[in-house]
């Protein structure tokens, strides 16, 4: 129980500090805000609680103690199943006790007790002068099933992660995408992931967003052609409607604009094709970068902003009014100098240390514009879709064990274990019937009362209470 509480407080820490696995940018920001404190917190694993050694140590200890508890319980349970209920000769006084003289012969009383108890679902054993009965074996079975399933569920979770992978890929409309490690924009592979990608091909036919009249998005859908082992099929991937192909699940994760941009000098086309832009969710303005190392006499870089629906608002200037591509325009700033491409860098930003601004301009869709001898054309506006691809071999097992656990939880909580003993003995020349039972709540007592009433008559039981 202490471990349960420890695990709980440990997990709660993970929601107070930014987590690298969920939001790496927030962790970086935390480091900037608390430069003195952050390294210590990091050393304690507070930025990656759910990967930290101490978190899984607690979990492991919990698992071991659970196991250490379950195995003896399982053995005891199997033994109890095999054995018949035994007589109660001595021991502590049970919670409920009724005694009364019997007019009938002992054998007859015990027969009747056996019948009553069997009808109520008890397992009954008969001995010389006594009947012992018990029921509620389902409680222990449910409890065992629940705890074992829980253990197996955590196991499936850990192993599923270790043998699986999670990745993301941005694909522009009309492009084909091959399932291979280099084609992922982001990938996290489990420790034991085989490295074998199933090698299917996705061709994005198109991507559409539909909107409610209020401007809220209604649906995102990617129309795909899937080629797998020579077979082709058409599918639509939507939010909440993933595609499953070769053990990999494909989800609609995100989307954005990919304007086709052609950069040329004179007759020389230096760059052309769709460029993946990142949309600022607050303004609806998308931003992208084109690097042209082949420009003469110097390298050239472009920083571009796409406004799908530009509008001039008095006092504010140019803003984007809606996500609908009504009259898309590209605003750009041209930089000349050294792009600094000898070191790896992000495709979404320019390293401006060796660059200087060389002019500004804008191009509407279908137009072109020349600035400082560089011609920028914007012939087409495409969209790209971001698909998340995951492989988790533990998934089905996790579901199975979760369901088993739930199935075990209910009897584990609600089925009551009840035991009843009936004894007939001779006292002062008369037969005396004694009914005893294991302690229980109100409903158990009600049941015991009925059993006793069936044997001795209701009026006798009404006056007796707890023993």
């Amino acid at each position, binding site marked *: *129980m202490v471990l*349960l*509480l420890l*695990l*709980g*407080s440990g*997990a*709660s820490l*993970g*929601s*107070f500090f930014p*987590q690298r*696995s*969920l939001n790496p940018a927030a962790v970086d920001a935390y480091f900037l805000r608390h430069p003195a404190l952050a390294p210590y917190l990091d050393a304690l694993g507070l930025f990656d*609680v*759910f990967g930290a050694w101490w978190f899984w140590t607690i979990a492991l200890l919990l698992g071991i103690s659970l196991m250490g508890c379950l195995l003896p319980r399982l053995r005891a349970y199997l033994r109890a199943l095999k054995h018949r209920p035994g007589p109660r000769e001595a021991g502590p006084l049970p919670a409920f006790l009724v005694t009364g003289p019997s007019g009938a012969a002992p054998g007859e009383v015990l027969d009747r007790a056996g019948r009553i108890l069997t009808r109520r679902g008890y397992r009954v054993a008969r001995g010389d002068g006594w009947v012992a009965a018990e029921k509620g074996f389902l409680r222990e079975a449910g409890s065992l099933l629940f705890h074992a399933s829980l253990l197996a569920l955590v196991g499936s*979770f850990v192993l599923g992660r270790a043998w699986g992978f*999670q990745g993301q890929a941005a694909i522009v409309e009309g492009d084909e995408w091959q399932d291979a490690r280099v084609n992922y924009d982001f990938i996290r592979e489990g420790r034991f992931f085989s490295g074998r990608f199933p090698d299917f091909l996705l061709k994005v036919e198109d991507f559409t967003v539909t909107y*409610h009249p*209020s401007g*809220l*998005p*209604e*649906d*995102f859908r990617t129309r795909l052609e899937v080629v797998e082992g020579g077979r082709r099929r058409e599918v639509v991937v*939507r*939010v*909440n*409607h*993933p595609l499953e192909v070769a053990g990999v*699940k494909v*989800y609609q*994760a995100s989307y954005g604009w990919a304007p086709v941009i052609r950069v040329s000098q004179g007759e020389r086309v230096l760059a052309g094709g769709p460029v993946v832009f990142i949309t600022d969710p607050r303004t609806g303005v998308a931003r992208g970068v084109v690097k042209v190392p082949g420009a003469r006499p110097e390298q050239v870089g472009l920083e571009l902003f796409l406004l799908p629906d530009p509008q001039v608002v008095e006092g504010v200037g140019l803003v984007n009014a809606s996500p609908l591509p009504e009259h898309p325009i590209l605003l750009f700033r041209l930089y000349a100098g050294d792009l600094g491409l000898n070191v790896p860098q992000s495709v979404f930003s320019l390293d401006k240390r060796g660059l200087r601004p060389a002019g500004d301009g804008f191009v509407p869709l279908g137009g072109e514009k020349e600035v400082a001898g560089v011609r920028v054309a914007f012939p087409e506006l495409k969209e790209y879709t971001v698909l*998340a*691809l*995951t492989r*988790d071999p533990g*998934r089905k097992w*996790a*579901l199975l064990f*979760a*369901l088993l*656990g*739930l199935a075990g*939880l*209910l009897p584990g*909580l*609600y089925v009551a274990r009840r035991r009843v003993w009936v004894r007939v003995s001779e006292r002062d020349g008369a037969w005396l019937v004694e009914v005893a039972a294991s302690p229980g*709540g109100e409903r158990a007592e009600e049941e015991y009362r009925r059993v006793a009433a069936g044997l001795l008559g209701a009026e006798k039981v009404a006056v007796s209470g707890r023993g």
Partner: protein
Amino acid sequence: MAEGLSSLLFFAALGAYLLSMLAYSLALGLRKGAAWGAGRGLALVGALAHLGSVVFRGLAAGRVPWGNMYEYSSLLGLLLVVSFLVLGRGSLKSVGAFVMGGAVLTLAAGRILYVPPGPLVPALASYWLKVHVLAAVGGSAVLGLSFFPSALFLVLEWVRRRARHGVLVGAGGAGIEAGDEGGLLGALPSSELLDRAALALVKIGFPIWTFSILAGALWAEEAWGRYWGWDPKETWSLVTWLLYAAYLHARSSRGWRGTRAAALNMVAFASLLFTYYAVNLWISGLHSYAGV
């Protein structure tokens, strides 16, 4: 039209709950059967109006009426009252004043987060919304209800201890000694009853909560590509689950009763509140797109 009607009924329910709370409070003081009846009747009337409010809200939005925090709070209040009326018959009536107070607070807090009915973002448009959120609200309502007998238990223990202490030192505090069953204490149920009631409610709420987490994981699998990702909401629902599990364990295998068990139930309840309010309002995570 439906939106206005929904709001009207919402405030009617709020008013009825407030009156019911007063009636239950009066009943505690006067110990008249009529006052208990009035409390229960008003709560029932309020719940019916409330049900109407929830239904019209659903009609106005054209979907199930539990898609944002206002709707969720409203439904939580309704289920709290309903589960009290159904599960708390008789023995738990003495906590009626507090439960109705809790319902009033839940509704008031929900109204602060009011947004007009509207469609949902695509990620929420799933049949899992119906299952997962309904189970989460239902589980919260029953687990939340178990807070009241435990809290009252702790208050009573405290008062009784003070009373005993007063008698022992012979100071002026002898007014409510333990044997003074004619006063306010006498109107309240025995500690044992409260203790058992809290356990019974946790036993009902816990599997519902478990199911809600399971349904949430299945949904997460479908929407985000993983059934568990330590999102703050997931983490906190697990923390809450662990705490209620600890409560059940403390009772069944450690034999915790009374004060200690009630205190643990308080902690679990705090975590439940945190899971619902704080995670949505203060901590950003995947669930925050559900909006307030």
